[in-house]
């Protein structure tokens, strides 16, 4: 039992493999660029969803972008994230193209953001897995 009593979601798999395999995308927004059709894809995939090519190259996308869709903040708890309310989940268009669905951090206060607000990536603790290990990854913060 860890000494700091953080909420741990019991529905998650008893494995760290998935989180480990996807860490480059979570830590540094690493996705792929299709060398056949040129599409930029995030998160990374094995086969291009546009032209079915396997000729993909790993690329780190821009860590800045703008909000393109901002639904109402989530005030009811998602399993495993009861302590983080309210959750502001928005759709972000990164400066070099791809779209990312991400959460906003609580400071600067995201209360008055709208479509077009500039954001930058922040490295944060996302959750703890069932077996206790921490999963880190991207969130976004508003830049004035």
């Amino acid at each position, binding site marked *: 039992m860890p000494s700091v009593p953080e909420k741990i979601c019991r529905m998650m798999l008893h494995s760290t493999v998935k989180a480990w395999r996807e860490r480059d995308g979570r830590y540094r927004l690493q996705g792929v660029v299709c060398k056949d059709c040129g599409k930029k894809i995030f998160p990374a995939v094995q086969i291009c969803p546009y032209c079915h090519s396997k000729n993909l190259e790993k690329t780190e996308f821009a860590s800045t972008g703008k909000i393109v869709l901002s639904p109402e903040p989530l005030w009811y708890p998602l399993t495993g994230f009861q302590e*983080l309310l309210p959750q502001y989940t928005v759709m972000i268009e990164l400066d070099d193209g791809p779209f990312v669905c991400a959460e906003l951090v609580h400071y600067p206060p995201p209360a008055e953001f709208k479509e077009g607000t500039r954001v930058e990536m922040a490295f944060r603790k996302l959750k703890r897995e069932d077996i206790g290990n921490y999963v880190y990854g991207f969130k976004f913060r508003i830049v004035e």
Partner: protein
Amino acid sequence: MTVGIKGYGVYVPPFRIKVEEIMQTWLNSNPVFLHDMMNLKERAVCDYDEDVITMSVDAAKNALKMAKLEAKEIGAIFLGSSTFPYVMKPASSIVLEALGAPNNTFISDVQFSGKSGTVALQICLALVGQKLAKNALAIGSDNLSIHTEPGDSFEYPASAGAGALLLGEDNLIAEIEALETYNSDTPDIYRLEGDRYLTRGGDAMVESNVGLPSHTTNAVNKLLEKLGREPKDFDYAVFHQTYGVSPFIIGRSLGFQDSQISPSLIADEVGDTGASSVLIGLAKVLDEAKPGQKILVASYGSGAGSDAFALKVTDKIGSVTRSPKVKDIINAKTYINYATYAKLDRKYQRTGGE
């Protein structure tokens, strides 16, 4: 060639709790004592999703940005902290991948309570000096708040923050002239295996001068002797800051003027940031330092030890872009009440399950 600082970065979590707020809950202190005698107004609290690792990444990114350096060019990352999220598993490996540094970078976690950050600096200095790394990141990061027992008098200053120094041999903004250290077995503040909260070895150890004042004085005097200098030869002096008053007490006893110390003062507004205390203080000084000026830095870690080093600011300092400045980071804040702080720091019992 001299080894020195190429860039620096700081991160302080934006949530602040005023000392009055803690006082209203516990009634175990008074405003006159904390404000006027200890020079402490408020201190920082980590958000839910922040810890030693995330603060380190933020500080390191700021340092890289200032030096206009790609993460791929880093050769060493040493992360000093006394409050790592994992007891076994390096935090520095997460910082390495979060920054995108090469996998063959020399990395490790180092722990020497409050001076962990300057111990990381020593290691990086040695690696750069020995040409094992071209650019080395020394990070000090601590979240003391989460490891301080509610109701403890240390709850007033126990804070969180991170500072990062990027060391190298070219494009230096400050050269490291000399380094000294002084260590002894002094159990003043410690945290045992399995313990969540840190323990104080009694007032005789903490409030007397056996810890912070004695070790810092010994290290600084040794350094002054080595360099053949006097306190007045320095433009700035940066000391470990438990309270806002601590650096002045140590500085005065060593013969420094208050005007040499006050530019580095951060503890009155952010509290004791542990391993990052002197690194943030130094960054605040470098924000306003002019070419040719001399800076003395002396950290302190419970247990106990002090590292003192002397820096000389170079002409390059005029051309670096400091964004954000330490002042701006400290001023970007939002106040929370005691209940929110207790929630953010998870100062409650959980019986388990969903």
